[in-house]
C-alpha cells in the first residue's frame, strides 16, 4: 500500500469515482439533449414510436415557434410562390405564413423584466449591503433576518393581496409591476450575497481613501464598487436567472402585455395538440442563456444558491 499521504485517494478510487460521476452526468443530460434534438424534428418524427434518434433535421419547429400560419387552398398556393425558406417549409402542409407569433414578444418581455429587475435589485441591494457591512445599524441582525425571511413566503400567500393591490394601482400586466415584484423577491438574495462580498473587501482601502479626502460616497463609488465588481456580477446573474425562471407570479399577474416566456412556452399549440418541436425549440432558446450563465458562474454557484451561507 502506498503511503505517501493518507488522505489522497488512490488512482483506482479516482478511476471508479470518475466513472460513476461521468455516468451520472451523462444520464442527467439525456432529457436536456433530447429536448434540444426534438426542436429539430418534424412534428411527425417528434411523436413517432419508437422515439427516433436518427431523423432528418428540419427547422420546422423553429419556424412554427416564431410564426403564425394558416391553411390555404391549392389555387392560392399555386398563385403565390413561397416568399422565403421559412414559407417553403410550411408549404408542405398547404399552409402559408401570415405573421409573427407571440414568442418574440414574450421573450423580449422576459429580457426587459429580467434585466430591469436585476438592475434594480443590484442597485438597491448594493447600497443596503454596503450599509449593513460598514455601518452600525440598530438591530442589524434582525433586519437582515427579516430580509431573508421574506424569501420563505410561498408566492401564492402574498399573491392574493398583490393581485388586488396591482388591480387598484393599474400595475397588473405591466412591465413596471413585474419589475418591482421580482425586485422585491430578489432583493433578499442580493443583500445577503453582496454583504458577504463586501465584507471580504478590507476596510483599510476605504479608510485610506477617506484620509485622502474622499467623501463616503466617493469612497463607496470609487473604491468599494470596483473591488466588489465580480461579486456584483455574479449576484446579478443569480437575480437574472431567478427573474428569468419565475412562473407563479407571471402566470397570475400577466396576460398579454407583460407576459414572460415561462407561462407562454407550455401553451404553444400547433394544429390540434401540442406542437412538440415548437415547444422544444422555445424551451431550447429559453434555457440556453441560463446554461451559459451557469457555466460562467460556476465558481460562485454554491454561494449564490445558499444565500451566502456557504462560501467555498
Amino acid at each position, binding site marked *: 500500500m502506498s503511503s505517501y499521504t493518507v488522505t489522497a485517494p488512490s488512482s483506482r478510487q479516482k478511476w471508479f469515482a470518475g466513472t460513476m460521476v461521468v455516468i451520472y452526468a451523462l444520464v442527467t443530460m439525456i432529457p436536456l439533449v433530447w429536448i434540444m434534438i426534438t426542436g429539430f424534428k418534424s412534428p411527425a418524427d417528434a411523436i413517432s414510436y419508437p422515439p427516433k434518434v436518427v431523423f432528418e433535421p428540419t427547422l420546422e419547429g423553429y419556424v412554427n415557434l416564431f410564426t403564425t400560419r394558416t391553411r390555404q387552398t391549392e389555387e392560392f398556393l399555386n398563385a403565390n410562390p413561397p416568399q422565403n425558406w421559412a414559407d417553403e417549409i410550411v408549404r408542405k402542409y398547404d399552409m402559408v405564413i*401570415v405573421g409573427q407569433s407571440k414568442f418574440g414578444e414574450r421573450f423580449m418581455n422576459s429580457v426587459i423584466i429580467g434585466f430591469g429587475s436585476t438592475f434594480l435589485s443590484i442597485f438597491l441591494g448594493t447600497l443596503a449591503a454596503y450599509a449593513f457591512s460598514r455601518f452600525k445599524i440598530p438591530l442589524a441582525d434582525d433586519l437582515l433576518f427579516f430580509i431573508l425571511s421574506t424569501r420563505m413566503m410561498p408566492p401564492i400567500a402574498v399573491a392574493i393581496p398583490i393581485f388586488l393591490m396591482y388591480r387598484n394601482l393599474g400595475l397588473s400586466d405591466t412591465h413596471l409591476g413585474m419589475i418591482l415584484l421580482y425586485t422585491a423577491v430578489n432583493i433578499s438574495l442580493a443583500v445577503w450575497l453582496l454583504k458577504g462580498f463586501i465584507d471580504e473587501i478590507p476596510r483599510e482601502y476605504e479608510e485610506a481613501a477617506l484620509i485622502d479626502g474622499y467623501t463616503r460616497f466617493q469612497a463607496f463609488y470609487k473604491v468599494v464598487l470596483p473591488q466588489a465588481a465580480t461579486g456584483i456580477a455574479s449576484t446579478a446573474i443569480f437575480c437574472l436567472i431567478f427573474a428569468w425562471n419565475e412562473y407563479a407570479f407571471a402566470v397570475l399577474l400577466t396576460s*398579454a402585455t407583460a407576459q414572460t416566456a415561462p407561462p407562454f412556452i407550455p401553451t404553444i399549440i400547433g394544429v390540434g*395538440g401540442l406542437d412538440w418541436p415548437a415547444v422544444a425549440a422555445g424551451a431550447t432558446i429559453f434555457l440556453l442563456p441560463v446554461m451559459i450563465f451557469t457555466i460562467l458562474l460556476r465558481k460562485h454557484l454554491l454561494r449564490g444558491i445558499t444565500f451566502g451561507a456557504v462560501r467555498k
Partner: protein
Amino acid sequence: MTYSKLATVSALALAVTGAATTSQAEDLTLCWAAWDPANALVELSKEFETESGHTMNFEFVPWPNFADRMLNELNSGGKLCDLLIGDSQWIGGGAENGHYVKLNDFFADEGISMDDFAPATVYAYSTWPKGTENYYALPAMGDANAWFYRKDWFAREDIRAAFLEATGRELAEPKNQLELLEIAQFFQGREIDGKTVYGAAIFTERGSEGITMGVTGALYTWGFKYENTPGSYDMPGAVNSPEAVEALEFYKEFYETATPPGYTNSYMGESLDAFKSGQVAMAMNWFAFFPGLYADPNTGGDKIDFFVNPPQNVPASTLGGQGISVISYSDKQDAALEYVKWFAQPTVQAKWWELGGYSAHNSVLNDPGFADSQPFAGDFLEAMANVQDFWQEPTYAELLLAMQKRVHDYVVADQGTAQEALDKLIEDWTETFEDEGKL
C-alpha cells in the same frame, strides 16, 4: 399576405397613443380561444377593417388556459380586450360583476333582433338571468359536443364481418350510448393494417373543463338534471339520481375499456391528435373542429363521417359555443359595438359559416341548402335542438372545479363510487350556493 413589419410597428405605436387618437379609427382587440374558428374570424374581420377603418387585433389563448387567463383579465379590470368571445358559462359572472356591457339598448337602436338567432343559442349565450330579455352578448359561434369516426374502417368488409360476429348486429353509427360503447370496445386493441388501434378518444382533462364536458354528454342523455325544479337550486335527487349514477358509471367503463392508453388528461387537442394519427376509430369533440377534420389530408374526406351524441333515455348534447360581448372596461366601446353591429348582418353571418365559423343566425341555419352544405351541417342542426349547458351562475368556475375534481377522482383516479362522487358533488355545490346566499 405576409404582414409587413412596418404594420406591426405602426400598430404598436397606435396602441401606445391609442387613448389620444380620435374616435375615427380605433385599434380594437378581440379576445378568444386559439382554435380553427378563430383563424376564420381573422379572415372574416378583414372586411370590417376595410369598411370601418378600424384595425382589429386578436388575442387568442389556447383552450386549456383560456378560462383562467380571460377570467383573470376580467377580474383584474384589464383593458386588454375590447371584445370578448367568452364561453357560455361566463355570462352570469360577466353580467353580475359588470364585466360585460348590457346590449339591450344597442340592439334596439340598431334594429338587431334576437329573434333572428336560434333560440337555443340566444338562451345560452346571451341572456342573464337565464331566459330573460337581458342581453349581454350576441350569439357568435354555435357549438356542441359530437362524434366523428373512421368511415373507411366502418365500411371494410373484414371489420364489418368481425363486428357482426362479435355483437350480432351490423356495424353502423350508434343509435344510443350503449351501442357507442360497444363499438368502441370492439375496436379497442384491434389490429388494423398492422397497427393496434383503440376505441374512442374522450375528454378526461382535469385542469380546465375537459372531463366535465365529456361526462355531461353521457349524463344528459340518461336524463341528468342539475335541479329538481329549475331555479330552485334543489339538487339532491337530481344530481345524484340513479340515472346519473348509471351514466357516470358508464363513462368510467368507457374510459377504462375503450380509450387509448395515456389518455388520462386529454381534451380537444388530444382527441384530434388521436384521431388524426389513426389511433382511434371514433372520437368526441366540438363541432368547431369538424371543418378542419374534414379537410385533413390523412384522415379527412371520405375517411371521416360525423354523428350527433347518441341518445340514451333522451336525446341531448353538451353545449359549447360562445357569444360576443363588449367589455365594460374598454375605452373603445363605440367602435366595439360597431363591430358587433357589423357581425350581426346576415351577409356577414353567411360568410362566417362559409369560412368555418358556426353562425347562429336563422338566415343561415334555415337556409334550405344549409343541411347539405357540409357533411356535418345536418348533425349540427340536430345537436343544437337538444343542447344542455353547465351552470351559468356567476360562481360557475367554483361549480365547475368541484365537478372536475369529483368526476376525475372517480373516473380516472378510481376513487370511491359513482354514488359517492355525485353525493360529494352536491355537498360542494350546496356549500357554494350557501355562500352565495342562494340556498
